[in-house]
């Protein structure tokens, strides 16, 4: 039994050390940061808040989709369990809603005469991309290609937290007595000085990068973060929520992060619920086999 405990301890140690390392890679939270939301999809029993996923999808459609593709998503995904259009009580209504939504967008096909013809999209079709190709995307955005959003939450250390922070983290006009594309004056406990934003780029304390090149203060206290080509997007009232929720900046950031978390891992709820069954099964199986083991070895001195 002693050896067994040692074995478990060893497993735990070896198992957790890389996990701890991976966790260390997430964004550090400094004192001035506003608290992060409590994501309902975290934890063993975590589930997406479907109303929020719905609002987040509205934000994506009305704001993000102008530049960011979601190439791996099809309209039918919207009606799958957990998706924004999913209605467990009425699968037909779900299907109809998805089909109606998809119809708003057109797709070009080659007809029998070799001509390009447009037809409305069907649920099986993918989301349209805002740009015809990456070159067009780069050219329209000063060389920076807006990342695809299909798996963005899994593709960023910090996941939904990172998206939320990035959306709410742009410095506000009042705070910096300046204009975007201009100078940002820092005068807090950590940093004193002026940060000049390069043309066409926008400072965000949560975007990975290095600000020291454009910082005129103490280089040891250059502001955290970096510059990105996307200007601030999410402001109070940027969208008019269909369900009447007040569209504060925090609410919009919360909803879009949740929608993107769902899009990145649409099978998350299946995974966690199946996981619970598996864990309970293994737990009871371990007890059964342990007693079987004890019974078999009872007469052997070892």
């Amino acid at each position: 039994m002693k050896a067994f405990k040692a074995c478990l301890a060893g497993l735990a140690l070896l198992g957790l050390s890389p996990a701890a390392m991976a966790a260390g890679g997430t964004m550090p939270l400094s004192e001035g940061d506003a608290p992060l939301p409590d994501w309902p999809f975290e934890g063993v029993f975590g589930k997406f808040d479907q109303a929020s996923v719905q609002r987040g999808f509205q934000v994506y459609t009305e704001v993000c989709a102008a530049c960011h593709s979601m190439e791996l998503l099809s309209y039918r995904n919207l009606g799958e369990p957990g998706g924004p259009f999913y209605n467990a009580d009425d699968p037909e209504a779900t299907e109809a809603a998805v089909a109606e939504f998809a119809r708003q967008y057109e797709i070009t096909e080659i007809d029998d005469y070799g001509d390009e013809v447009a037809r409305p999209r069907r649920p099986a079709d993918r989301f349209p991309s805002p740009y015809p190709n990456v070159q067009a995307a780069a050219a329209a955005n000063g060389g920076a290609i807006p990342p695809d959003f299909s798996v963005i939450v899994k593709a960023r250390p910090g996941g939904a937290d990172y998206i939320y922070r990035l959306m709410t983290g742009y410095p506000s006009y009042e705070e910096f007595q300046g204009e975007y594309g201009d100078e940002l004056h820092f005068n807090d406990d950590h940093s004193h000085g002026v940060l000049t934003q390069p043309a066409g780029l926008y400072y965000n304390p949560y975007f990975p990068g290095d600000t020291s090149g454009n910082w005129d203060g103490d280089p040891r206290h250059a502001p955290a973060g970096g510059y990105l080509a996307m200007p601030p997007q999410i402001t109070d009232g940027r969208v008019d929520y269909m369900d009447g929720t007040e569209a504060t900046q925090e609410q919009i950031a919360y909803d879009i992060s949740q929608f993107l978390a769902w899009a990145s891992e649409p099978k998350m709820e299946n995974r966690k619920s199946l996981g619970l069954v598996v864990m309970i099964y293994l737990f009871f199986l371990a007890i059964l086999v342990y007693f079987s083991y004890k019974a078999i070895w009872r007469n052997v001195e070892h």
Partner: protein
Amino acid sequence: MTDDKDNKPPNEDRRDFIHIAAGAAVAGGAGALAWPFVAQMLPALDTRAASSLEVPITGIPEGGEIRVLIGGKPFFIRHRTAAEIAAAESVEAGDLPDPQTDEERLVARADGTLNPAILVVSGSCTHLGCVPVGPGSNTGEFGGWYCPCHGSHYDTSGRIRKGPAPTNLPVPTYEYNADGSAVTISL
């Protein structure tokens, strides 16, 4: 074995039960685990979603047909001439290898009327799945389709008339759109 049992101490049965229960639990778990590995061979969600298609029918010339692929399966949409319709309707269904009237092989439009000019059938020969040839090539002895693989002849209603194929070309699930200018075929 019975001798052993008699010699066992009283709690031996309980111990046997533990082994049987543990073994059964392992077997049950292994069985449940097998399911995902079986299920993954089923058509994936995207494959299933891509299994319907809307086909415009107004452009099909009389006496001609168009061929479409839905989920990799071929379908024929034929615009029949008056003579072909008459030929299909005049046959006594009872005499056929796979008895079916022409009317049974049509689907009503949105207003409830039939459109005998348009025939929609599967494009896989019911014998071994070859794609029969049709108008413009060789329509066989009965003016419908002819399967060159093993010589099955289909009539202008897609019914088997001669050759090894056991049944008529199946009519897929389809429906007309509101103005009757297109059909949506589903697998």
